[in-house]
């Protein structure tokens, strides 16, 4: 059977499952639509949250980033897992006890102000919108590869499927499809790495391959794999794999911003509103991080294996002797070779091969020769360009695994993108139907009308997201990830923490804090990402890490302003005391 047939089978089966679940679990009330009637088991919610959390970017790009940056990529590994410790110990149990459906609900009630609610709604919409565009683009790209269709057709298919089960099933539909999607993702991610780990380190558990020895056939003495990677890296002019290259303060700030950003992302927080009580939230939290850890512990091993494999198979080889996968991905435009010293041998070294992404002139290509690149060549000894995403995508081919595994990896990519897109879509639609329409614009609407607004809002959101997925505003999408985390870190995280842990913070303080934190973070990111090419960052803190400073500003402003204005009313202080105690969570008011 050929590759396309396998792809059709895997994508077809997984889509059939997702649609089947959507029909089985379609929502009849807003309570089902927003929080799945709070009947999800902690274990299932753990899987669903893990799938919700791990996006197409995590699935496809993270291992490639680790392979390229070595120790420098640790900020992603620690940042995107450590945030769950903050989320669990400082936020979700109390927000679950509070018992409302959305994050702006808490902000609006705790700070007794519709202005605060409105700021929260805008932040939620902005964070989710920037995130969902990238997911749509990811689905489009994977589909266009799989079935040789245009990217816009792929985006529309992906958007249609997500709308079908998120719009129809609401939180209930999303939750159970995400459980299925997690299963697809975890197999798709780990199975190829298990095989590679066995070949390279002889260890069946790939997570332990990171600390294992290099035992590939033909190797005379076994040596720790990391020593070998360090040695070949420095031989080729790279930094040592296990050594950092950036400044420590920047690494610290980025890691911190990713952690607090994670803890402030509304689509992750609301997932914990679907379980029965506070005890179930705590249980669900460790299941979530456990499921995420299976993939996050595999990623650094995969990155290192891939780096070793890639260099061993490519460097100092003749182009004619290059493995088949090299030529396959070259024809996709994700690998390119420029014979700078005209010796017919591929030299992989540190540095850029040429400026930007490759563009090719195939009219002058000789038979059995490489594709000719038209980019401006950079003077470095490196001749081999590769797109970091192939580390995961081409992984099964590099290891010579069967075709059905390649199809499984593709299904995993699609599952990662769809599960995250669905979670974001739900937050977008509830922000509009519940927080905006029901709580601010038209308080009198019935449950049925609110559901209708939710479905219409998610249709509008999916159309806008699809539009930007088809026409990405240049490199906007990649840069806006810094936005999403920076905003979450400097707005939701401090505001929610203060709302729970302090009875003194009042509405003036919270609003001033949010506005100060966001304005500072936005201004810094916009200035360095869009207005200037300068890399003269303040104290060397890059835009990815500035959300951490924005968070500190939010805290400081909120405390100062609150101490100068009257304290919150008595009933708000009582409410804060009530959410600190878990008992009777299930009976807390629902809407």
């Amino acid at each position, binding site marked *: 059977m050929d590759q396309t047939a396998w792809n059709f089978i895997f994508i077809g089966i997984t889509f059939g499952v997702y649609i089947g679940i959507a029909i089985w679990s379609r929502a009849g009330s807003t309570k089902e639509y927003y929080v799945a009637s709070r009947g999800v088991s902690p274990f299932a919610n753990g899987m669903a949250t893990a799938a919700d959390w791990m996006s197409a970017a995590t699935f496809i790009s993270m291992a490639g980033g680790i392979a390229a940056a070595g120790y420098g990529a640790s900020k992603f590994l620690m940042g995107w897992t450590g945030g769950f410790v903050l989320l*669990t110990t400082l936020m979700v149990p109390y927000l679950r006890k509070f018992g409302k459906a959305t994050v702006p609900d808490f902000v609006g009630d705790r700070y007794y102000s519709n202005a605060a609610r409105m700021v929260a709604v805008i932040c939620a919409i902005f964070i989710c919108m920037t995130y969902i565009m990238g997911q749509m683009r990811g689905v489009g790209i994977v589909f266009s590869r799989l079935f040789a269709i245009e990217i816009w057709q792929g985006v529309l298919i992906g958007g249609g499927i997500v709308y079908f089960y998120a719009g129809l099933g609401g939180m209930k539909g999303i939750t159970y499809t995400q459980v299925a999607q997690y299963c697809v993702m975890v197999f798709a991610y780990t199975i190829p790495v298990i095989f590679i780990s066995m070949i390279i380190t002889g260890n069946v558990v790939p997570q332990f391959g990171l600390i294992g020895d290099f035992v590939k056939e033909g190797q005379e003495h076994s040596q720790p794999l*990391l020593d070998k990677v360090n040695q070949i890296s420095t031989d080729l002019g790279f930094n040592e794999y296990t050594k950092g290259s950036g400044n420590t303060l920047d690494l610290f700030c980025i890691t911190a911003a990713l952690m607090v950003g994670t803890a402030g992302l509304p689509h992750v927080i609301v997932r914990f509103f679907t379980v029965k009580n506070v005890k179930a939230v705590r249980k669900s939290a460790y299941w979530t991080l456990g499921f995420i*850890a299976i993939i996050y512990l595999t990623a650094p091993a995969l990155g290192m294996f891939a780096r070793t494999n890639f260099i061993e198979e490519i460097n100092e080889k003749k182009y004619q002797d290059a493995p088949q996968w090299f030529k396959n991905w070259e024809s996709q435009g994700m690998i390119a070779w420029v014979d700078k010293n005209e010796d017919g041998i591929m030299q992989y070294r540190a540095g850029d091969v040429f400026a930007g992404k490759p563009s090719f002139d195939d009219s002058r290509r000789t038979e059995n020769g490489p594709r000719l690149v038209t980019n401006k060549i950079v003077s470095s000894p490196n001749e081999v360009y590769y797109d970091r995403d192939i580390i995961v995508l081409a992984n099964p081919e590099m290891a010579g695994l069967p075709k059905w595994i390649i199809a499984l990896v593709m299904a995993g990519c699609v599952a990662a993108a769809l599960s995250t897109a669905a979670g974001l879509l739900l937050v977008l639609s509830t922000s509009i139907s519940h927080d905006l329409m029901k709580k601010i614009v038209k308080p009198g609407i019935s449950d049925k009308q609110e559901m209708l607004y939710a479905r219409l809002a998610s249709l509008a959101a999916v159309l806008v997201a699809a539009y930007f997925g088809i026409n990405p505003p240049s490199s906007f999408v990649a840069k806006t990830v810094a936005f999403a985390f920076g905003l979450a870190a400097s707005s939701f995280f401090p505001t929610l923490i203060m709302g729970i842990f302090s009875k003194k913070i009042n509405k003036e303080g919270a609003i001033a804090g949010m506005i100060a934190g966001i304005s500072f973070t936005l201004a810094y990111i916009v200035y360095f990402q869009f207005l200037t090419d300068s890399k003269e960052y303040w104290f060397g803190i890059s835009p990815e890490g500035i959300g951490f400073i924005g968070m500190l500003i939010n805290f400081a402003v909120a405390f100062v302003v609150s101490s100068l204005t009257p304290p919150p009313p008595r009933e708000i202080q009582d409410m804060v005391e009530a959410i600190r105690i878990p008992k009777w969570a299930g009976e807390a008011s629902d809407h």
Partner: protein
Amino acid sequence: MSDPSDSAKAYWRANLKLVGCLLLVWFLVSFGCGILFKEQLDQFSVGGAPLGFWMAQQGSIFCFVLLLIAYAFFMNKLDKEHGFEEED
């Protein structure tokens, strides 16, 4: 309950103490071992990996999972001691 507000205060104090301890460990294993003291720890090794590097890439993640399990266990115990336990 004799005096619910006293009991609630004691519960909250114990809660803050537990969360404080867990977050201290959280900070030490990630920012401490993985970033600030990484160079010093790299003199030691775990299997074939330098310790500081391993903490940054895998060790801290193991610790995070353990921290969350500890949080659930001790909080449930705290609920029971102060009579705030939820029914299943």
